[in-house]
Structure formats: structure tokens, C-alpha cells
């Protein structure tokens, strides 16, 4: 990277390149159609074209590239889950982030600064021990730490000793971090486009034509396409798009709101979250404090803002860092999350033979972008679901083989 940077700096006539490939006319048919031009869809397109040599791929995006939940998450990357199946999957995801800037030749600003989850009770500490032991067993860097270590990791934190939310310890996940979500999407789009993948923005899927248990054509607002295989990865609209293909998904939609403050001098160099306060904070490289929490209390498919959620997030943030009390909010937003009953995604086969699912990502989809893209591309290219994805199959609900990860979401819902 430094050498190429030097070359770039010394070159007198630099021709700027276009990160996002232009939208061409739709062809009559594609080997693979990916519905959803967010991180997951773009990553799958990248792996299909660059690793598996499948180049006749179209990514269909209803709005603009990576403008949905890819643009709306709070960029947390971690693998501190509870079940073996989840830790194995997310650990692979974190490892892909570690090499992503190099792999894509695109700086995704991956910052592996560690995540600290606070325990405010003995019961939480016990559950942290469970997660730490599982994580260590699977080879991630994770440990339960005492109050003194919490203080060293985060010197400005209000420990509230003896108070209502007394900090009794924490779960320190050194592998946790953040990355620039837009850069990741642009990097994938650029590389997928360079190998023949087409990215069609403003292209909305309106229906499917089926023959037996296969999808033969995808209808869009720009014409009908014959397809070999279809991958669905559409965030908050997964239930609706699957329904058009005649597939029912165990999904309910909730808005998830977040906000950032005005930029401040660096004071927080780790990710901090508190399950009790339903709040997590991270300081961005621009100095803004990103504040996130749990989803809205009732089902909704609108990204409107509510005062009570903002007040709730502000209250949590002020409890942990009281000196933020005069800091102004710069902006706020919401995304629609597709929540499954067991707080785990649905990946792999669907009832249709050539229709693959990458959905149910709820509030935890960003960290899985590279690994979901990689493994879904492998599934489509080989026609076989890899072992790491098998536990996330849609059929687990019919056989009661659920993966309960409710307590391992960044802020429990």
C-alpha cells in the first residue's frame, strides 16, 4: 500500500476512476441474478465473478447502490456470539475484514480497536463467562475482565460504583472493530463490475415467473430477465420479495434508530456497549460519537424518527459518559431490520431449487457482509450449502433447531 500511494502521489497525470460501474441496459438473461444491491448482494457478486469465475451476473437494486441498511448500520464488527455455529461464522467474517483493504485495493478503514460490553449485574457476568469460554474454544480473542481493566480500557467511563447501573466487569473482545461501510460496498461494486458483473440501480423486482419448483424469469420495472439462479438479499423487504416468489419467511420488521453527535476530540478508542442501558457508543474517525441501541418496541416498515428512542439513546450515552451533556446531535436515521424468531439469519436453500436466501439479518448484518457474500457465492457456484451455513437454513424452524442469539445482539431487544 505505501509504495502504490507514493506512485499515485508522484504521477503527474492521474485519470480518476469510477468506483461504481454505470448501469447498462438489461440483458435478456443472466446466469445469476442478485436481488438487492447492498453489501451482501455486492459481496456475493464480487465472489461469484472474482473467485468462481461466474461473470454473467446482475445485481438489481431498487434504489441506489448500498443505500439501504448498508448505509444505515453503525459499522460494528465482532464475533462474540453465544452458540458455536454463530461464533464460527462471524469469526470468519472478522478475518475477512482484516484483509479486506488489501484484497480490494480499497481502503475500507478497518479499525480493530476492540469491543467492551459492560456487565451491570452478577447474572450478566455469568452469561459473559459462557460467551468468553465459547469464543476461546473457537479461537477468538475474548475474555471477561474486572472493573480495574474496564477502567484501563475506557478511562472516561462512568462506573457508577454503588449506583443503579454499577459496572461490575465486562466482556472484552479484542477482535472487534469498525470499518467504513460505504467504502466496503464501493470496493465490492468496483471489483464485481471489473469482472463483468452488472450493477443495475433503480431496478425494482416486481414479480417472478416460475415453472415447477424453479424461478425462470425475474420481472422488473425495466423488463423481464431469464435467470439461471437467484439470490435474494434485500434487508427490510425480505419478507415481501420472498412472498412474490411464494416463499413465507419467519420475519417481522422493526425500525432500528441511531444517531451521531458533533465531532469531538478523540476520547474513546474502543467500542463500548451496555446491555442494561440498551446503548452502545463508538467514536468515528471524524470524531463523531455514534450512538446506537435496541430496535423500536413495535413492528413498523417506516424509517421515521421518534423522540422517545432518541431520548433513550441520549440517556444511556449520558449515563456512561456524563460529560457529553452539552454535545449536540448532528444527525439521526433509522433502518428497517428483518428480525427472525431466534435472532439469527436465514441463509442457504429455499423451497425453490434455484432460489437462494440471504436474509433475516435483523440488527446484525453489517459484520457478516464479507462472509455471507463469500459463502452464498460458494453455495450458488457449487449448488451445495457449505457446512458453516447449514445451521442457518430456513428449515430449522420446522425442526425446532433454533439458534438463540438474543442475548448476543449488541443491545438486546
Amino acid at each position, binding site marked *: 500500500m505505501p509504495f502504490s500511494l507514493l506512485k499515485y502521489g508522484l504521477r503527474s497525470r492521474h485519470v480518476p476512476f469510477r468506483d461504481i460501474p454505470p448501469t447498462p441496459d438489461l440483458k435478456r438473461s443472466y446466469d445469476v441474478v442478485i436481488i438487492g444491491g447492498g453489501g451482501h448482494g455486492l459481496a456475493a457478486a464480487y465472489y461469484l465473478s472474482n473467485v468462481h469465475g461466474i461473470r454473467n451476473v446482475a445485481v438489481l437494486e431498487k434504489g441506489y447502490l448500498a443505500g439501504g441498511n448498508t448505509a444505515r448500520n453503525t459499522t460494528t464488527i465482532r464475533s462474540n456470539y453465544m452458540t458455536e455455529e454463530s461464533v464460527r461464522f462471524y469469526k470468519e467474517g472478522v478475518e475477512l475484514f482484516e484483509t479486506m483493504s488489501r484484497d480490494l485495493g480499497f481502503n475500507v478503514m478497518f479499525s480493530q480497536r476492540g469491543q467492551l460490553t459492560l456487565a451491570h449485574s452478577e447474572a450478566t457476568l455469568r452469561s459473559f463467562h459462557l460467551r468468553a469460554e465459547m469464543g476461546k474454544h473457537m479461537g477468538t480473542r475474548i475474555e471477561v475482565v474486572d472493573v480495574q481493566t474496564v477502567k484501563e480500557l475506557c478511562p472516561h467511563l462512568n462506573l457508577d460504583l454503588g449506583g443503579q447501573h454499577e459496572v461490575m466487569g465486562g466482556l472484552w473482545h479484542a477482535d472487534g472493530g469498525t470499518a467504513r461501510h460505504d467504502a466496503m460496498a464501493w470496493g465490492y461494486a468496483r471489483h464485481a463490475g471489473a469482472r463483468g458483473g452488472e450493477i443495475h440501480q433503480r431496478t425494482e423486482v416486481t414479480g417472478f415467473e416460475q415453472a415447477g419448483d424453479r424461478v425462470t424469469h425475474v420481472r422488473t420495472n425495466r423488463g423481464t430477465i431469464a435467470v439461471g439462479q437467484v439470490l435474494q438479499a434485500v434487508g427490510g423487504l425480505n419478507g415481501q420479495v420472498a412472498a412474490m416468489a411464494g416463499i413465507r*419467511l419467519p*420475519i417481522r*420488521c422493526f425500525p432500528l434508530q441511531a444517531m451521531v453527535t458533533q465531532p469531538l476530540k478523540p476520547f474513546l478508542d474502543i467500542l463500548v456497549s451496555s446491555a442494561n442501558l440498551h446503548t452502545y457508543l463508538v467514536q468515528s474517525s471524524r470524531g463523531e460519537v455514534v450512538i446506537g441501541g435496541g430496535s423500536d*418496541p*413495535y*413492528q413498523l416498515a417506516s424509517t421515521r424518527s421518534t423522540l422517545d428512542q432518541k431520548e433513550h439513546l441520549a440517556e444511556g450515552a449520558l449515563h456512561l459518559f456524563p460529560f457529553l451533556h452539552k454535545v449536540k446531535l448532528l444527525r439521526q436515521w433509522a433502518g428497517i431490520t428483518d428480525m427472525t424468531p431466534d435472532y439469527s439469519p436465514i441463509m442457504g436453500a429455499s423451497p425453490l431449487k434455484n432460489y437462494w436466501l440471504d436474509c433475516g439479518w435483523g440488527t446484525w448484518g453489517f459484520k457478516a457482509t464479507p462472509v455471507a457474500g463469500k459463502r452464498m457465492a460458494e453455495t450458488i457456484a457449487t449448488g451445495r450449502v457449505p457446512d458453516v451455513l447449514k445451521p442457518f437454513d430456513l428449515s430449522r424452524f420446522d425442526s425446532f433447531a433454533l439458534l438463540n442469539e438474543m442475548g448476543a445482539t449488541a443491545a438486546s431487544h
Partner: protein
Amino acid sequence: MKLLTCPVNGPRNITEFQYLGPVRAADAEQPEQLIEALFYAENPLGVMREWWRHTPSNTVLIAERHTVSDQILATYLPNRKPA
């Protein structure tokens, strides 16, 4: 402040209410519908009938709410749907 009308106590701040989820079409007592009742909850883009509880008075009610506009169209007691 968003208001929800309790059929017993009148319009109240929505923070006084607890959301209990959609009214389910599937019946958990019927074995063939059990999985559907447990996991496949209603999630429409449109009007949804749902259970709410007014916590101070413990009144359980049904609301009809649009899941895109968030507009509450009607609230009533479970067995007293207005004509």
C-alpha cells in the same frame, strides 16, 4: 408524544402501552398450525391487527395500525369490534 386510545381510559401517551404483537391467524392449539403460530408472525405492509396492553390499568386491547404510515385506525376491546 404519540397517542393511543385505550377503549376504557381514553387517549393516552403510547409509552403507557406495551406491544404484545400481531393478532395471529394461526392457532397454536392445532398441531398442524403450531409452527406457523410460533414462528411465522404476521408482517404485512399495510393495516395490521395487533395486541396492546395499557399497563397502568392492565387493559388488553386490539389496535388496527398501518405498518407503513404508523397511523392507528381503531382500538377496541378484544370481543367488541365496532361495526
